Structure formats: C-alpha cells, structure tokens
C-alpha cells in the first residue's frame, strides 16, 4: 500500500490563503502586538525603574489602564495569531529551495526568522495568559523570560516586515478577489470580507468575555478571566495572602517606625490618632486585574514631615512579610510626595483585613500592585 503524498503548497484550495488576507489580519495583529509590547515595557519599568527614567505618580489610574490593555491585547492576539497562521499555512509546505544558491540561502534565513517569530509569539501568549491564573508549570522564570521573548518577537517581526515589505505594499489596498467556480461565495464559500468579519468577531468575543477583570462593569460576563474584581475580603481580590507571606497578625507591643532625620515610633492607636486622609485609588496588578477602592490613613508626606525629612524623599518601605521578592519596596520621591499616597489603615470603610495588609500598608497612585507593600512596619528615608 502506498502512503498518501505529503501536502504541498497547492494542496490548500481556499482562495483565502492569500497575501491580501495575510496583510489585513497581519495589520490587526501588529496593532495588538504593539500595544502589548509598549504596555509591557511600561509595566517592566514601573516595577523595575532604572534611575534615568522618571515615572510620574499621575495619572493615578495610568497603570490600571496600561496593564489592563496589556493583558487584553495579549488575549485578543490569540485568535488573531491563529487566523494569521491559518492564512499562511500552505507556506509551511512550500518546497525547500534546491540546489543551493544565494536565493536559497536567503529563503532558509527567512524561514528561520519565521520559526523564531512563531515559536516565541505562541509561547509568549501562552505563558502570559497562564500567568494571569498565577500558574507556573514551566521550568524557567516567568518575568525574565516573558520580557526577553518580547524583544525577540519585536526583532523577528521587524525582520519579517523587511522581507515581506513588497508583498505588504502590493496588498495594502484591496486587491481583486478570485472566486472559485464550483462554490459561489454567495452560497457556501467565505468571502474575504466574511472572513475578516468572523475573525474580528472572534477577537471581540474573546475581549468582551475577559476584559471584566480590569473593567468592573464587564465583571459579570468575564467568564474567560481568572479574576472577578469584587471577589475578595472587603470587596477586593488578593494576590498574596497573609498566610502565604508568613504574617499572622500583631501583638500589643507592635510599633511602627520611621527612620529619617528623626527616629519616630508609633503604636497602632497612636497612628490612628494622627491626621487621617482619604484616597480613592485602584489596586492594579501585573496579572491585569484591577479594582478601585477607598483608602484611609496617614499621608506619607505628612509622616516624612513629622520625621523632619523633605516631602520629596526616596523612601524604603519594609514589610513584615517573610521571603518573596517584595518584602521591601522603594517609593521614588514623586510618589512619596504625592498627596494621594497613604500609609493606609482602613479600606472601604473598615479596618484593613489581614490579607490586605493589616495593620498598615502603602497605597500610591499609578503603581503596580506588587509594589503596594502590605504589613508595613517601617519606613526608611534613604535620601
């Protein structure tokens, strides 16, 4: 018995495997990738701020928007990437160039660049989505790999654009559509416009059913999102619980300290007796979920003033949590001086729940949730 011949580029009769279709879906994918890359870069620098980059503390909800967009654009890119791969799928079966020549070498290099692009992008979207579930089944560190792959994707994408530029230009505007004789599109076959509508519909559907973790209005229909913004103690989700952080609460000897020009120390009741301020600020996490909340506590700038430090001081925030990357965090001067930045004692009208950082936590505008240290017991003025 003879095995069936492997497919060739000609084995795929659909006229939708066409450069015009690839160009249109490629443009959509490029928009998603660009948004995802830029917002990801912003998130990276917000978490790990280099000294040359001043990140402003306003607008207060900026990080909420950029990180929501990051996860949304990444999720929406899944159907777009699949549609793009479907369109160009016959190319996978194109004959390898032979005999060796300069042109053959160029073709092989181009294919290698596409292998890099497709593998990096598919893995990037996969680990990005799985990370929003806080699930890490892979044997490499998530954050570093996700960041490095992003640069590799952008590099491979630029090479891809360089190779395909003439084809993209030729198909930038609508080109004549070949209609198969046997299956008039009005009856069964899908037209290009029909395909574009279907793909756009799929992307929209995925977006609507997942964006609710960042946009509470869509929370009830966020059936494809790992978070619902109002689920959690005091109506706010939690990333790291007190139990996971090894924090069990405080005893009556607990004192809060500020080390600045003057050393100050307060019992919890003394903190409560200081002038209290209110801030409406969101918790916005790197996993894309966010939720606004009402916080009450002492302005960090007021505490700095009490200790004799200028409002624009760099402040190290020390938590009682054990282990983890963020047992200490740093408040840059603009954030320490912002009147919205609090050492919060209360949340949504009640005392902070232990999982939200009882007895005291930092809450500042435009910051990734992971830097909003909980269970704070010391502030150190660095400069």
């Amino acid at each position, binding site marked *: 018995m003879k095995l069936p011949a492997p497919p060739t580029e000609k084995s795929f009769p659909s006229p939708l495997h066409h450069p015009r279709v690839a160009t249109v879906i490629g443009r959509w994918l490029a928009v998603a990738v660009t948004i995802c890359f830029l917002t990801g870069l912003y998130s990276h620098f917000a978490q790990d701020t280099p000294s040359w980059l001043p990140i402003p503390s306003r607008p207060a909800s900026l990080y909420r928007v950029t990180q929501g967009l990051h996860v949304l654009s990444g999720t929406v890119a899944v159907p777009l990437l699949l549609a793009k791969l479907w369109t160009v799928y016959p190319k996978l079966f194109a004959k390898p160039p032979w005999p060796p020549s300069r042109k053959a070498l160029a073709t092989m290099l181009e294919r290698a660049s596409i*292998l890099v692009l497709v593998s990096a992008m598919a893995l990037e979207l996969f680990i990005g989505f799985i990370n929003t579930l806080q699930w890490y089944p892979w044997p490499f560190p998530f954050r570093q790999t996700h960041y490095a792959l992003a*640069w590799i994707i952008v590099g*491979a994408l630029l090479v891809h654009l360089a*190779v395909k530029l003439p084809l993209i230009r030729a198909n930038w505007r609508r080109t004549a559509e070949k209609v198969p004789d046997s299956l008039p599109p009005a009856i069964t076959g899908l037209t290009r416009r029909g395909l574009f509508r279907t793909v756009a519909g799929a992307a929209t559907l995925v977006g609507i059913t997942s964006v609710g973790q960042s946009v509470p209005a869509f929370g009830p229909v966020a059936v494809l999102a*790992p978070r619902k913004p109002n689920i959690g103690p005091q109506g706010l989700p939690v990333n790291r619980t007190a139990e996971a952080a090894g924090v069990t609460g405080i005893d009556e000897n607990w004192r809060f300290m500020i080390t600045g020009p003057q050393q100050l120390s307060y019992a919890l009741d003394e903190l409560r007796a200081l002038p209290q301020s209110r801030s409406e600020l969101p918790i916005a996490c790197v996993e894309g979920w966010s939720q606004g909340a009402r916080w009450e506590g002492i302005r960090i700038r007021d505490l700095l003033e009490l200790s004799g430090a200028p409002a624009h001081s760099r402040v190290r925030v020390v938590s009682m949590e054990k282990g983890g990357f963020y047992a200490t965090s740093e408040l840059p001067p603009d954030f320490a001086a912002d009147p919205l930045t609090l050492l919060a004692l209360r949340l949504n009208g009640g005392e902070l729940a232990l999982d939200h950082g009882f007895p005291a936590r930092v809450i500042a505008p435009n910051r990734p949730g992971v830097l909003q240290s909980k269970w704070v017991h010391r502030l150190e003025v660095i400069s």
Partner: protein
Amino acid sequence: MKTRIGLAVAGVGVGLWGLWLLLSALELPALIRLPIWLGGAVVADDFFLVPLTVGVGWLFVRWSAGPDRHRTVGAVRTTLLYVGITSLIAVPLLLRQGKGTNSTVLARDYLRDWLLLEATIIVTGIAGYFFTLRRSRASSGDIGGR
C-alpha cells in the same frame, strides 16, 4: 530597499538584545529547557490547532455542498469557530478550577460559565440564522417560505 535593509538591521539588533537578556537572566537548566517549550508551542499551533481548523474547514466545505445547505452554512461556520476559540481559552481555566493560589483567584464556577457561554453562542447562531433567512426570503419575495 533602504527601508527594508534598515528594518532588517534593526530587527536583528533588537532580537539579539532579547537573546542577550535571555542568556543573562536564565540559568543553564532553564536555558536548555526553554527551546523544548518553544518547539512545543510551534507543534501545538502548526501541527494541531491550525491543521484542526483546516481539517474541520475541509469537512465543512464538503458538507456545505449538499442540497439546501447554503441556508445554514454561514451561521454554522461562525458558531463553530466562536465555540472553538472560546473553548480553547477556557481550557486552562477549566483545568485550574479550584486550584487557585488563594480563594480570590479562579473564584468562578468555570464549568458552568463555559457551558453557559457556549450555549449563548449557539443560541445566538440559531437566532442569526433565522434572522438572515427571513431577510433573504423577504428580499427575494419568497415570503411563503416554500
């Protein structure tokens, strides 16, 4: 040509920067295993998901050539595709249901929600089918429905 060369040079530079980041941030065991995962991602896409779509599409075109199928073909195709893509994204959520790191992660009943979502897509598909059917009959004057 200048634009293309510029793009290619920039692309190689940016890609190498990413590679350097990878090499400097990952330990050797992770660096050895990463290509396996990258390969796995290609296999999942190019040798499972896309062939599945192509195969279903091929069966679908054959089926749709049958008598009187032209009325349902659009609605069935779109419904199948939307059920497929939403189910794909639901897979990790269904797998991890109840296994979140704390009670506020994956707090939904994802099985119920996924079934509801698919049911909604199918019902919308059926409604869309009857809507287009009525419209096409009205426009062709075939109001009797014969």
